[in-house]
């Protein structure tokens, strides 16, 4: 992996130049996000080089949010300082749990102490925007133990928290343990209870629940510390994706890059140019027709528990009223207590936040 890094960074910058170079005028960019895999393994020098390229190719705004996902076990004091100096201004770290047993179950290489230390170093380096990921609904995780995890995270006093319900992904060791009965399958009802408790506790602590799995502190100057980058996804707005396996979405297309590192590098090196916004490593292109765009806008927009899907914005974007398009669905979901339609928006109710799939499904496939 280490051996590939220079070649990979080279390929990445080529890809950015290739796509950016064909975009006409420099596109304004408000957010950058290093994610997927473990970007904290990337030497700060490489991060710097990527950012420099981005600034050359795009009109990266001075106040742009630049996030890097970091594994608390792989960061150092110097490394974090260098990242900050390179321009990264937001860190998202996978804390997961305060309990050693949970971390072991999840096969995470870090400890709770690593997390505390990483947060301290990040503050020292000047990061003002930190986020931690936690996982609830773990096997054997009681409400009491979950409370300990959440309190520990609160004590670290970060701007942003992401709470994910454990999903036993096929093919992982955890899935095997559950299958063979070594580990009890996570229980849906206790997961619901943990989530509900977290909603209350975080509200009391002054966090805004702005997306199903995400909470943010209020900003002194108004608004909140929600991830601007992820908000772009949830508002179904365009974004570029660079790197092996990256996804992009713009000009009515969803694009997917080659996922294999070697293939990705070869493709970028060859630099074969496909029509914009495709890049040299694009291997999959999906056209998004109007129907799909509407459905996806609702599917992701309703995840925004606070802002929901704006009626005005929907009208402006699609030229028809939300409630005219889905009268039956809205009526039924309202009756079931899962959504609320206010003067300006459609959004999930408190109960609907736990039953999002039901709500999203209602808007899919026409009927």
């Amino acid at each position, binding site marked *: 992996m280490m051996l590939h890094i220079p070649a990979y960074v080279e390929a990445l910058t080529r890809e950015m130049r290739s796509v950016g170079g064909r975009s006409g005028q420099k596109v304004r960019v408000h957010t950058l996000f290093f994610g*997927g895999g473990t970007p904290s393994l990337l030497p700060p020098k490489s991060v710097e080089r990527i950012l420099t390229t981005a600034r050359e190719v795009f009109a990266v705004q001075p106040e742009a949010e630049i996030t890097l996902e970091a594994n608390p076990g792989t960061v150092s004091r110097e490394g974090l300082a260098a990242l900050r100096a390179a321009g990264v201004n937001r860190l998202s770290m996978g804390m997961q749990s305060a309990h050693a047993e949970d971390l072991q179950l999840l096969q995470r290489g870090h400890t709770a102490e690593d997390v505390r230390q990483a947060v301290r170093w990040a503050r020292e380096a000047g990061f003002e925007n930190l986020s931690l990921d936690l996982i609830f609904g773990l096997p054997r995780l009681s409400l009491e133990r979950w409370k300990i995890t959440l309190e520990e995270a609160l004590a670290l006093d970060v701007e942003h928290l992401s709470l*994910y*319900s454990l999903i036993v992904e096929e093919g992982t060791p955890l899935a095997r343990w559950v299958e063979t009965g070594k580990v009890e399958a996570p229980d849906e009802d206790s997961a*619901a209870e943990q989530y509900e408790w977290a909603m209350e506790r975080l509200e009391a602590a002054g966090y805004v629940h702005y997306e199903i799995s995400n909470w943010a502190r209020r900003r002194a100057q108004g608004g909140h510390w929600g991830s601007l980058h992820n908000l772009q*996804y949830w508002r179904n707005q365009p974004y570029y*994706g660079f790197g092996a396996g990256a996804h*992009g979405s713009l000009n009515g297309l*969803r694009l997917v890059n080659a996922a294999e590192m070697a293939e990705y590098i070869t493709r970028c090196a060859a630099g074969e140019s496909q029509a914009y916004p495709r890049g040299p490593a694009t291997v999959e292109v999906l056209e998004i027709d109007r129907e799909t765009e509407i459905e996806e806008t609702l*599917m992701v927009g309703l995840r925004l528990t606070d802002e929901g899907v704006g009626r005005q914005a929907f009208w402006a974007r699609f030229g028809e009223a939300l409630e005219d398009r889905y009268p039956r669905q809205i009526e039924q979901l309202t009756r079931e207590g899962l959504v609320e339609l206010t003067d300006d928006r459609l959004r999930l109710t408190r109960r609907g936040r736990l039953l999002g799939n039901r709500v999203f499904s209602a808007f899919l496939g026409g009927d």
Partner: protein
Amino acid sequence: MEHIRNFCIIAHVDHGKSTLADRLLQLTGTISERDMMNQVLDSMDLEREKGVTIKASAVRMVYTAQDGLDYELNLIDTPGHVDFNYEVSRALAACEGALLIVDATQGIEAQTLANLYLALESDLVIVPVINKIDLPSARPDEVAQELENLMGYPAEEIVRISAKEGINVAQVLELVVNKVPPPKGNASEPLRALIFDSHYDSYKGVIAYVRVNEGEIRSGDSVKLMVTGAVVKPVEIGVFSPGMRPVDALRAGDVGYVATGLKTVAECRVGDTFTNPQRPAAAALPGYRKAKPMVFAGIYPTEGEDYPDLRDALDKLQLNDASLVFEPETSQALNFGFRCGFLGLFHMEIIQERLEREYDLDIVVTAPSVEYEVIMTDGEVLRVDSPAQLPDESLISEIREPWMALQIFSPTDYFGTIMDLISKRRGVFVSQEHPAPNRVQLNFEIPLSELIVDFFDALKSRSRGYASMDYQFLEYRPGNLVKLEVLVGGEAVDALAAIVHKENAYHKGQALVSKLKELIPRQLFDVAIQASSGGRIISRANVKAVRKDVLAKCYGGDITRKKKLLEKQKRGKRRMKMVGSVEIPQDAFMAVLRLEEE
């Protein structure tokens, strides 16, 4: 006529009838090597997939025998499954002889006997054949002895073959020529041709399979159906070889087809006799008793709008399968559908699969029921084949249910466990026989309602697959029967009702409720499931409201995948039936069939 032989192949299920037919078709050159495939006469998709013959097929072969003469051999391959017994009895009426195939490893089984008796009743010459001698576990000598004991045919004269490997198959053809008598009947007498089967062809209408007993049909002649009186001008007459091949004439002794051009089977019933309208015969041939449906179930479209498609599909199936009966039915829970009658569970399964696969319909099938005779307090007698239709208890003076004579064939080792199964199922022991060493034939009487609830599977599993069974209708007998109702969310769901023996009501109610609790997914609200009988709740359970579904994260790269996943789940949900405000999956309606035996 001297050179015609009409014969059928009969046997217990899977003993190798269709495989032997393959070899005979090859040996006589009726089918080219290029067109050959296994069980070539099983032409329906479902037959090929399940490896079972569902419908009899007739085929004409020409064979040059060792005496140097050419013979016309008309072969009818029959199904072995008990549900399709009536197909065998019809085929027999078109033949003078039958090859009785017995698997050399299994020996005589229930349908071996049942079919043998049918053939004897029709006065056929029976030629026993022992098959599958290539198998290491074959015991041809013992089986030959069993056959000698059974039918007095000298054991040493019984031909032993492997249909699969083609061993000794030529001998079978010689036996057919030498043992099966040529048909009698005079070609110059007035025409009488028996319709022993039919299928529907979208171009040529109803194709009647006929055996000409006397007289002849010439191409271009009109024919008259003696029972209905209708006169038809056939589109074509011909023989199966094995595809339809037109001929100029079918004469006394021949087996072939008459393509009638008729659009409904009702106009051309199996069992009717064709005669010549100019020179009619005096009397029709004895027909068949109509196959009587024994098992009834509701079939409903999952989506109400598919109702007309379902009706069309049932109509079409009936064109090829006159034993399927159906009439419109409405259910509070399932809305508009059809009450269908079947010959047995296997028949029902086949119809269900054909509707789903050949007609691409999403359907709900309710648990099968038998037909009850309900004697009302005012003396009126009702026939009820749907538990939901059972009148109020206070108006009923007696309920009678069909009882069957049941024969089970088994190695003696399983005697105990079979007796135990029978007593659990309200059966009564009648007698036993020992047709061969270590084998026993047990005769019982048992309510049909007990046979249609998983009985055959239970028998097979208790006997490690060795026991086989056959049954025939016996009579209606009064029973201590009650209606078991199921309430979901406080509402009685008619399609889940069952008629059960009073002593079992409590136990069955509990088992049914816990099964339904497993099958009904959690909904947005608590759902109570209750079983009641005689106005009393005998069991209850609660499906707790769902609190959360997957709270998966969803960022840029997840959107397409996640949308596909949700769409797939949604399609899965469409396969559920809304009963009131509760979503009930289709298999819940069959739950009563799969209650654990303790």
